């Protein structure tokens, strides 16, 4: 599925310094019944965001108008649990284009890269700096520079580099996905399939 190209993103960020945020929190299972990829943003963090009577929980960060932006900063081991890509869709659909954490769960990270959300893994120290800065001033801006592979706290200029494979970087910067690539090597795949042991 095509998505917006990612180059340099400057934005304020929403802080969620909780560890082991699992995909059941990002999108609870009961909201996985759609057959189309629409409307998942409304249910991002559904049970942390709303009371059972659907009134917003005032103490949850997404309901605090002080915090906003296209970057979500989460605690360690972000996105653990299910393979449901709906979790990444919910993040994207809500309006986030980038998630920063000191550690990501594998499948969630892959899913993000496949749909145009950039997962940026930083050191635990730098993640702490970001949380501290945002809590001190919610208007703190971050710059996520994909070509340079850096994330910068603009107020102080403190920055850190992050890893991404050259292949995925190219995809993200051009809005390509893996299916485009795989389609282009189909004859090679069909030839390969003739010589498998099973």
């Amino acid at each position: 599925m095509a998505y917006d190209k990612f180059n340099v993103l400057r934005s304020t960020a929403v802080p969620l310094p909780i560890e082991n945020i699992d995909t059941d929190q990002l999108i609870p299972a009961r909201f996985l019944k759609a057959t189309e990829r629409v409307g998942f943003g409304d249910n991002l963090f559904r049970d942390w965001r709303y009371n059972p009577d659907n009134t917003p929980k005032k103490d949850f960060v997404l309901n605090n108008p002080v915090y906003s932006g296209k970057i979500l900063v989460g605690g360690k081991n972000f996105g653990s649990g299910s393979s449901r890509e709906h979790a990444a869709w919910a993040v994207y659909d809500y309006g986030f284009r980038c998630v920063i954490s000191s550690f990501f769960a594998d499948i969630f990270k892959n899913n993000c890269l496949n749909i145009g959300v950039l997962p940026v893994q930083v050191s635990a120290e730098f993640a702490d700096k970001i949380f501290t800065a945002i809590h001190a001033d919610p208007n703190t801006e971050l710059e996520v520079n994909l070509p340079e592979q850096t994330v910068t706290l603009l107020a102080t200029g403190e920055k850190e580099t992050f890893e991404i494979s050259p292949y995925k970087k190219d995809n993200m910067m051009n809005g390509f996905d893996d299916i485009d690539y795989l389609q282009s090597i189909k004859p090679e795949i069909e030839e390969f399939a003739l010589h498998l042991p099973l």
Partner: protein
Amino acid sequence: MSKTLFDKVWDTHVVRKIEGGPDVLFIDRHLIHEVTSPVAFLGLKSRGIKVLYPERTFATADHNTPTINQHLPVADPLSANQLKALESNSNEYGISHWGLGHQKNGIVHVVGPEYGITQPGATIVCGDSHTSTHGAFGAIAFGIGTSEVEMVLSTQCIMQPKPKKMRINVNGKLGLGVTPKDVALFIISQLSTSGATGYFVEYAGDVFENMTMEGRMTVCNLSIEMGARGGMIAPDETTINYVKGREFSPKGEAWDKALAYYKTLKTDADAVFDKELTFDGSKIEPMITYGTNPGMGMGISQDIPDAAQVEGGAETYAKSLNYMGFSEGDHMIGKKVDFVFVGSCTNGRIEDFRAFTSIVKGKHKADDVTVWLVPGSHIVEAQIKEEGLLDILTEAGFTLRQPGCSACLAMNDDKIPAGKYAVSTSNRNFEGRQGPGSRTMLASPLVAAAAAVTGVVTDPRTLIENEELV
């Protein structure tokens, strides 16, 4: 060069390596279900492409399916719509479809092995993280996202960087009442939910060598809960005896060829792992979780640890205990239980029901506990009846439901109500996993049985009357 079991299977399936990028990995078997496939089919339609090898894909309805009155139309219109989409997409693209009411219907990770779709040395993917289950056969099996489901449908390949390799050895003799589920929960409690992230795990040692296929599936199933992409166990006589003669297993000459391949599937003696851990199986006791992720588990006779004793943020830990309504230092034994759930791709196999029955035989269900016993497939359901387990269960006041994922993730009507406590043999105790506000304690079928007859968390070892049956 010396290779691990994982290297051998992976390398055999690499179509192409991309400089500075992932490997293009050929997928032998693709399992799909109703939840994570509809958008992938929409993608195919919008691109105007077909399924490359429909005979390599198998569709099963499980996540949404009711566990009673399966002969009636599905009441929830959204669930019904999703189940219908799986059927119509399968029909349109020529994929075999085991929908509700089909004799082969059941949980995707239970029916795959039962019908011989799962084979040693295969690459298997599914849009479900517990695809790691199939690694029990020496396959590379892992969960994928919907974009990747679309990739596999259209090209039978996915693009993945090769993970790092870890070996977890567990040696020694397991104590009485200690099951494969306890071994897995113990390992996760030692590694945490992120301890194996980035790795593919091989389980080795005599504890796994002595395990049945059902037990190995339980262990590999839970690999994802420590962050691993998957887990695998080298195929041996136990594996081959299980696979041989099943409906989709190779036959005749194809079997001989497959068998020759299976026999190559073991880690070379001098192969090197990126990380290796060893545990003493005799030290493991029946396990139970007390928190809101599968890593927050402990021996059932222990007390809930203080925040200072656990890795991770104190605030996150306090949030978790607060959700569960527990405190640091609490005993788990004696905690009230409202619901017991036996089932899921972790523990919905015949062995799990045999274990449950061994404890409840001759006793009676506790009055104020609701117990949901949900077999993983029609084969398991039939075995429960044929082996006489159903008679024992009925005598003890229990009933059997119909196959499906059920209360594991509560996408159907089987939801644990807010604030209620459940002892569950499933795989996840995340907040709200079994229904909004539900509180889950993960445990083995033996611990589940002990709770079902006493109404509180109980050490099953105190209820074992006939050691032969456990």
